[in-house]
């Protein structure tokens, strides 16, 4: 494995891990809200969360480019704070997190829906307030699905191509990920390196999906 291939593999894994961490709190919160609460606009939130699964990733990338571009609504805010996101490693993480989020939310939501409400009620009769009930009963009982969802989200992040290439580009040593790298190497006739990246992608994804399936089945 060439140093460049190794570098891409390490960067992509780290970026996907960072994306998983980024999506974890909002993802679990959304999953819980969708599973346990009724609120106006719930169907819209539900649809928005799932949208990245069906919209072409390139379109999502373009949307991110506009949002986070220097003149975009979020990008302008960040720019005034001296932060530029587009075509940086952080943009890779943002694209990955957004694309992985639907998988995390769906899996975690199913987990929350499986938690018997009576356990939570029992904890209440024992004096536990809402936060204690959530952290000591709801969350642990849904944890297998949350971990499985995070693994799925991570796997999705790992393979992200369309959104990443639009919003982060393919800058060697800076924003080049496994999927983007495979494409770039192929384009430039570096077939051996492309294949090495394919092998790395397949191995990581294989382990992640296997792990996720095992976690859900145990539940």
């Amino acid at each position, binding site marked *: 494995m060439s140093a460049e291939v190794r570098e891409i593999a390490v960067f992509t894994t780290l970026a996907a891990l960072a994306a998983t961490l980024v999506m974890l709190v909002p993802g679990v919160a959304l999953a819980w809200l969708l599973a346990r609460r009724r609120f106006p606009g719930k169907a819209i939130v539900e649809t928005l969360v799932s949208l990245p699964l069906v919209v072409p990733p390139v379109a999502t990338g373009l949307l991110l480019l506009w949002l986070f571009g220097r003149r975009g609504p979020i990008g302008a805010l960040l720019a005034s704070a001296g932060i530029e996101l587009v075509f940086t490693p952080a943009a890779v993480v943002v694209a990955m997190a957004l694309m992985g989020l639907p998988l995390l939310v769906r899996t975690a939501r199913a987990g929350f829906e499986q938690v018997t409400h*009576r*356990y939570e*009620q*029992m*904890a*209440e*009769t*024992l*004096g*536990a*307030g809402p936060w204690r009930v959530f952290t*000591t*009963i709801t969350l*642990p*009982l849904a944890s297998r699905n949350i971990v499985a969802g995070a693994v799925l989200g991570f796997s999705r992040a790992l393979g992200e191509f369309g959104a990443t290439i639009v919003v982060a580009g393919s800058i060697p040593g800076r924003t080049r990920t496994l999927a983007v790298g495979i494409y770039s190497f192929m384009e430039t006739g570096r077939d051996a390196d492309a294949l090495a990246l394919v092998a790395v992608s397949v191995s990581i994804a294989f382990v992640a999906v296997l792990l996720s399936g095992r976690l859900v089945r145990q539940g």
Partner: protein
Amino acid sequence: MTTTEFILDATCRQGAFTLALDLRVQARALALFGPSGSGKTTTLELLAGLRTPDAGRLAVGGRVLVDRAAGIHVPARARRVGYVPQDALLFPHLSVRGNVFYGRTDAASAGLDETNRRALAEVMALLEIEPLMDRSVSGLSGGERQRVALARALQASPAFLLLDEPLAAVDLPRRRRIVEALRRIRDELAIPLVYVTHAPEEVSALADAAILLDGGRVVARGAPRDVLPVMAPLPEA
């Protein structure tokens, strides 16, 4: 021996079934009888705060738990209730120890004096929880689950205990010890009991008042010996 006043004056609709209670009872241990589907468990759930009545008032020992007209509804977590449902409902992800001490907080144990503390320890010994402490709840038998659920309720220092067929899953030899434990809970810890049972002998052992429910209504009330013959004409030997 002081008794506790239970005011159960409430209605609760669930689909086609309506539970309508109109009771004011003085008791240390109140037994609830009736065929299945008569509203016994619903009554316990109303007292535990797992259900809200559509109308009416619930009070235990002068403490109002629910008063719909006055807009009072004490949430389950503030009722200081010890609820032992029929299926025990132990937290599956915690060990027996984790379950037993889930509700024991500094505030909960601060209310205990030395005598109470000793009585609680004796009750725990009667329940034979100690050998189970480090086990996972998934391996427990039905009777063990019931004992752990009762211990968990007690450790939270409840103001009153709600027991749904506490002895149903307990094997016969152990039953006497559990009844003894419940008697001490009632007398030494002075925790009033409300319990659902099908067994007349459990009533005579513990209850000083009983009500008979049928189809969501109270059809008999009074001393256990007055209510018992109504509900269960025992077959002649």
